[in-house]
C-alpha cells in the first residue's frame, strides 16, 4: 500500500563518499597446473585454434561454475634479436601480441612514431627494455577496479624442469605504493617487480589494466625452461621454437604462487533520515489496534509507541526507489529522535 506520511530529504540530509574495498587474491600453482588434469594440460586450461593466448579457469571451463581468472601469452618486439630468426614459430603472432599490449599501455613514441618497449624501470627513457616478454593478463573478476599497489607477489620456479620449485625467485612490487614508486602511462600506473633475492627488476605490473609483464631474465640461466619428451628449450629457444601456448604451458609449470590485493571503488550516497520526536509515533499496522484501541496504551495519557524496521526512499512521485531494513526494531516515541544513516552503494 502507498505510504501516507513522508518526510522530505533536503540537501543537508544527503552526502556522498568514496570507499576503497580491498580483497586478497591468492592464486596457487596447483590450480594453474595439475589440479584438473595432468601436467601441462588440464580441464581448466583453454587453448584456442588461433593459438594467440591461453586462458586459465578456476574449475574445468566447460562447467558453468568455472570462473575465468587470467590469460597467458608471450611475445617479442619487432626489434628483438628473436625477430627474423629463421624458423620462428608463430613469429607474426608473437610480435602482434607484444605490440598490442604495448600500444594500448605505452603508446607510440619518437620521430618514427614507433611502439614503445616495455621497460624494467619507471623512467620511460628507452633503457632497460624488455624486448621479449611473458604476459599474465588477469580477469577483471579478480582485480576488479585495479590491483592495489605494493601488494603483488609472484613466486616463480627456477629449478630444473622435473623439479621447478627446488629453486624459486620471489618477485614483488614492494617499492610501489599509492603515493610513490610507480610511473604513469596511457595504460595507467605501473610498478616494477623486483626479485627479492638480488634486488633486480624482473618485470612490471600495470595496476589498472591488471597485467603483469615478465622479462625472460628470471629463467635466462636455466637450460630447460620448456621441455618435452622430444625437445628441451631455454627460454629464448622456447620463444623462438615453441608455439605461444607451448611457452604458456611452460610458464604455468613454473608459477608457484601469485598473490595481490584487488581494489573496488565504491561510491556511496548517504541519506540522513531524521525522524523527529513529534512524528511517526503511531502506526497503520493492523495489529496496532484492537477494537480500534491502540494496543500499546492503557489510557489516553500513555505515551504512544511505534517501532521502526524499514526505511523506504522515494522519488517525487511516491515511487519506492530503495529500501533499507534495520537488523532489529527501533523504538520510536515522542521522547526520542532517530537519525538513520542509509547508505546506497554504486
Amino acid at each position, binding site marked *: *500500500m*502507498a*505510504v*501516507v*506520511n*513522508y*518526510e*522530505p*530529504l533536503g540537501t543537508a540530509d*544527503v552526502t556522498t563518499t568514496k570507499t576503497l574495498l580491498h580483497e586478497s587474491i591468492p592464486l596457487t600453482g596447483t590450480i594453474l597446473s595439475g589440479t584438473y588434469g595432468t601436467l601441462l594440460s588440464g580441464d581448466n586450461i583453454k587453448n584456442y585454434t588461433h593459438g594467440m593466448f591461453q586462458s586459465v579457469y578456476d574449475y574445468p571451463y566447460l562447467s558453468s561454475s568455472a570462473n575465468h581468472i587470467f590469460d597467458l601469452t608471450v611475445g617479442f618486439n619487432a626489434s628483438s634479436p628473436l625477430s627474423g630468426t629463421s624458423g620462428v614459430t608463430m613469429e607474426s603472432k608473437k610480435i602482434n601480441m607484444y605490440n598490442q599490449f604495448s600500444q594500448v599501455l605505452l603508446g607510440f613514441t619518437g620521430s618514427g612514431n614507433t611502439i614503445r618497449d616495455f621497460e624494467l624501470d619507471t623512467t620511460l627513457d628507452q633503457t632497460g627494455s624488455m624486448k621479449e616478454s611473458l604476459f599474465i593478463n588477469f580477469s577483471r573478476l579478480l582485480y576488479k577496479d585495479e590491483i592495489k599497489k605494493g601488494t603483488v607477489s609472484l613466486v616463480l620456479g627456477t629449478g630444473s624442469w622435473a623439479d621447478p620449485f627446488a629453486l624459486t625467485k620471489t618477485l614483488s612490487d614492494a617499492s610501489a605504493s599509492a603515493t610513490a614508486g610507480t610511473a604513469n602511462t596511457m595504460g595507467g600506473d605501473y610498478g616494477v617487480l623486483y626479485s627479492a633475492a638480488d634486488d633486480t627488476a624482473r618485470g612490471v605490473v600495470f595496476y589498472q589494466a591488471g597485467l603483469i609483464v615478465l622479462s625472460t631474465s628470471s629463467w635466462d640461466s636455466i637450460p630447460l625452461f620448456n621441455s618435452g619428451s622430444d625437445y628441451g628449450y631455454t627460454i629464448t629457444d622456447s620463444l623462438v621454437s615453441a608455439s605461444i601456448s607451448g611457452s604458456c604451458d611452460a610458464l604455468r609449470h613454473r608459477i608457484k604462487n601469485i598473490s595481490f590485493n584487488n581494489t573496488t571503488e565504491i561510491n556511496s550516497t548517504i*541519506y540522513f533520515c531524521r525522524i523527529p520526536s*513529534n512524528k*511517526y*509515533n*503511531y*502506526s*497503520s*499496522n493492523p*495489529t496496532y*489496534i*484492537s*477494537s*480500534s484501541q*491502540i*494496543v*500499546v*496504551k*492503557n489510557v*489516553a*495519557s*500513555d505515551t*504512544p*509507541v*511505534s*517501532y*521502526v*524496521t*524499514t*526505511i*523506504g526512499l*522515494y*522519488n*517525487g512521485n511516491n*515511487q*519506492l*526507489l*530503495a*529500501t*533499507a*531494513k*534495520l*537488523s*532489529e*526494531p*527501533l*523504538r*520510536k516515541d*515522542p521522547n526520542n529522535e532517530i537519525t538513520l544513516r*542509509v*547508505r546506497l552503494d554504486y
Partner: protein
Amino acid sequence: MGFLDNSGDIILDAVLTDLGRQKMARGNFSITKFAVGDDEIDYGLYNKNSPSGSAYYDLEILQTPVMEAFTQTNAGINYGLLTNTATDLLYLPTLRINTKGLNNTVRPPSTMRGLFFVASTAADTTNKLIAEGVTAANHTISNATTGPAILLEAGLDTTDINGTAANRTTYLLNTNLVDNYYFVYYDNRFISSILGPTPVSKFNNTVDENGTLELSPALHNSPRVSTDLQLENYSAARVRGIMDGIVYNESFGTVDTTLSIISGPRSTCTMLNVEINPNLSTEFSKFGSEDTALPGGLVGAKFDFLDTILYVQGANTGIQTQIPLRICKYKSG
C-alpha cells in the same frame, strides 16, 4: 529473504528496488523523501501487564527478527508509521466492509463467504447468477451507477464509546482522523474503472430523526490517480468519502449497529462498484475459469469468471482493507 543478524550492533541493509535500478538506467533516479514502516511488527506482543515493569512491555517486539531488504517495490512498506501531533490518542479508526444486508448494498453469498460478485453486463448474467443463488444483494452489476454497491465504513469500532455525533467530533474530527478520500487499487487488466460516491450519495439514520436508514448509492466514475500500489498491473482511483451519518441515539427505534458495521463513532464511508474491462476475453482462461459451474450453485449454469482483489486505503489515516472480487460472465447452461 533471510533474517538479518541481530546478535550485535544494529546494521542497516539497503537495496535499490527494481524500479530504482530502472530509474537509474534511464537517468532519472532522484530520491527526495523517505518513509518508515513496521511491517514485521506484531503489536499484539506488546505486554502491558508484564510483571517485570514497563521496561519489559516490548521485550518480545524488540526481539522480532527482521528480514533482509528485497527489491520488489510493492513489498517495501505496506504499513507506514503515522504522524499525528496529538500524543493522547487512545483510538484509531478502522475500515470495514458493511455486510449488514442493507438495501442497495451487497455482501458475499452464504455459499461463498468472502467473495463479492460482480456481474458482467453480458446477456443473462444477472438472471443466471440469481438462479444460482447469488441474489441481487450478493452481486453488483458492472458500471451500474444506482447500486447496489459495496459499502465500506470507517470509524472507531469499539463498544467503549457510543457512536454519537459529539463523539465523532471529539474522537475523529478534532484529532484529524477522518478520511475524505480513499484510494482504490485495482487490476487494470480486468477492471477499467472504479465507481465511487457522488456529492449526493447518502448514508445516515438521521433524516427522520428516528433512526430510519437513508442510503443512496449514487455512483460515478472516479478519477484515476498516479499514486499507485506499485503492484504490477495495478492502477489507483481516488474515490470520495462521504459522511457516515449513522449515529447512536437512545431514542431511535433502530439501533445504530443494526445498520452500521462500526460499533462506535463513524467518520466517513464510501460506496464502490467497478466497471469490468469490456474487452475481457482470454483473461478468463488465463487467470480464472471458463464455462464453469459455481461451487454450491443451484441449477448448474456455467460462467466464465476470474478473481481479483481491490485494495482500499484511507488517504489521510492509511487505514486499509481488501475486497476479494469474483467477476462473472454467463456462458452456458
